[in-house]
């Protein structure tokens, strides 16, 4: 009994240690990573580069004799291809397809079944002991 208590205490201590180590790395790396991602899209330099690309596209269209409103519309389409980055992120992070939802249901069903089986087995063991 005392041994088990000691073991549990040791495990708890190790868990706290582990969590501390994980958090110490995460607290340094995650903000740096997010900062890098943000800087690559939302910075003066990135805006200028993107503006140059869009402006060159617009200029080419104008020089080819495209009407102003059509050139603007086409440039808008060219730029909107970059907004798909947001869509990609949405799908990658939050997007759950039908398949994953079904899988989630199946997993929770199996877990419930196993727990029920385990519960029954434990009851039987208790009855046998009595």
């Amino acid at each position, binding site marked *: 009994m005392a041994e088990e208590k000691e073991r549990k205490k040791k495990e708890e201590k190790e868990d706290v240690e582990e969590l501390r180590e994980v958090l110490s790395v995460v607290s340094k790396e*995650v*903000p740096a990573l997010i900062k890098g991602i*943000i800087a690559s899209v*939302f910075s003066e330099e990135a805006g200028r580069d993107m503006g140059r690309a*869009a402006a*060159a596209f617009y200029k080419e269209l104008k020089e080819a004799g495209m009407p102003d409103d059509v050139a603007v519309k086409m440039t808008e389409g060219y730029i909107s291809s970059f907004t798909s980055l947001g869509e990609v*992120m949405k799908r990658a992070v939050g997007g759950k397809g039908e398949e994953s939802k079904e899988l989630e249901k199946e997993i929770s069903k199996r877990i419930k079944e196993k727990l029920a089986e385990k519960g029954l087995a434990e009851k039987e063991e208790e009855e046998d002991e009595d």
Partner: protein
Amino acid sequence: MRLRSIISLVLHATRLLLSLLALWLSLGWKVRRARKAFEKELAKMGMTKKDAKKLSAWYSKLKNDIMQTVKSSLFAWR
């Protein structure tokens, strides 16, 4: 030893949250600067100010999309 670990854990978590808060606060400013630089480049090529503003709106849309994604993923974890 354990108390030290817990204190260190809380400090790291606070540091993480403060860094994320600072990033969130500075994001609006960064978007504004990127938009201005973008509009300036378009104006150089002869685009009207109105059209340049219309085109630079995608920056705000992108920012909103990213924030929405982060928020929804946070709520999904809870």
